[in-house]
């Protein structure tokens, strides 16, 4: 089971308390009516599906209830770090988890 650090509760807690909420840092379109079909496709359906460090959203659903972001290695499932919603993706060069 994953141990996930909630940046609001400031505690590492079991996966069962959390709900995964997909890839992070996908911005909603500013002007939806101006989007082409290809841009809608990219926004709605295309995901990076990274094999490596992935920025993703989690919700502490059985805890504080808040959304936050985390970086996790999708090969080893180890978390690099987690950070509050709205913060930019932290620079983690040199801090990649051991495989």
């Amino acid at each position, binding site marked *: *089971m*994953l141990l996930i650090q909630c940046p609001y509760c400031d505690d590492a807690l079991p*996966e*069962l308390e959390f*709900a*995964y909420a997909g890839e992070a840092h996908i911005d909603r379109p500013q002007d939806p009516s101006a989007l082409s*079909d*290809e841009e*809608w*496709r*990219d926004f*709605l*359906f*295309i*995901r990076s*599906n990274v*094999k490596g460090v*992935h920025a*993703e959203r989690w919700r502490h659903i059985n805890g504080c209830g808040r959304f936050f972001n985390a970086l*996790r290695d*999708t*090969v*080893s*499932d180890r978390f690099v770090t987690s950070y509050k919603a709205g913060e930019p993706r932290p620079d983690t060069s040199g801090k990649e988890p051991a495989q």
Partner: protein
Amino acid sequence: MTHFSAMSLLKNAISGHKNWPEQWPDKQPKDEYDVIIVGAGGHGLGAAYYLAKEHGITNVAVIEKGWLGGGNTGRNTTIIRSNYLYDESARLFDHALDLWENLSTELNYNVMYSKRGVMMLAHNVHDVQSFQRHIHANRLNDVDNRWLTPKEAKAFCPPLNISPDARYPVMGAALQQRAGTARHDAVAWGYARAAAKRGVDIIQNCPVISIRRGADGAVEGVETGKGFIKARKVAVSAAGHTSVVMDSAGVRMPLESYPLQALVSEPIKPVFPCVVMSNTVHAYISQSDKGELVIGSGTDQYTSYSQRGGLPLIEHTVAAICEVFPIFNRMRMLRKWGGIVDVTPDRSAILGKTPVRGLYVNCGWGTGGFKATPGAAHTLAWTVAKDEPHPINAPFTLERFTTGRLIDEAAAAAVAH
């Protein structure tokens, strides 16, 4: 390569089974092929076989980063069925079912296809309505599927608990009698043997690093762990790793890769005559011919390439199995594993051409790709050979995510994928 028959079995039995020849040679890559298929699972090997057999294209290589059939082909719970809601899906999966029927004879290899029936349990009013809608849609598409009352379900599968006091009461079930299981390894081995016999090279332990495109944008070949291999046509059939391979060709895919777990029990005497799926509680169970209970679970909630998955899901699945089949509550489980499944937004496959000339793709099967193996392979071979969609795979394009013409089995599926 020996033709399997009663005579060849007898001959080899007399000589103590010491003289069986190898089933297919382990090849090193040539410099150039007409077609390269990335991924030697059932889908990839099957496509190579149909290319050689039906389209006369034998200068084909199937390139596999690990060992043959070691990905999702060897990791699934071997359920075969075709009772999908939409016309497009029903046609594709029923085409596969038609091919399953004669696959052992066609390949001269026993894939142990067993029409033991797949029964899907309805536990609440929504399930009942949704399954009956499926049954009506299936009947219109000439796909076998019928409704069973709880008593009929119990008669079909005696270990089932239909007590009204059960935690998950059984309100009925949908039964596809023509559905069942097959031996997953044998499907990969059978296709590999039959394809190799027609001249296809199967190259194992050779990861595809990237797909190379020329100045005009068309495919030129693949960079692999064993050097560059030239080919004007490349078909990607790499399941959970499809988006990684396609990224290298500059094609971003609407895919996410999730772990899907399964487990088996210790072997016991025959006790379970069919396949039972319970979508509401996420448990899929059958008994293999070896006697193990084969149990499938749902996907983990997070994307991953770890081929492991988390234990909470296994606990949930096993708890559900014990509620629905109380006789199994003291069974011991032997092992569990995960496969990485590539899931599309509409839970239907992507099968056919891509925006890149010479690049074809067969992916997005999510949690249900094994059943489609012969159908997907057969229609992919057609598309690669003729460079045009097969009537059955035509709706399963990559463009549907731009046009919005989705095949939304996610919202309508018989299973919570």
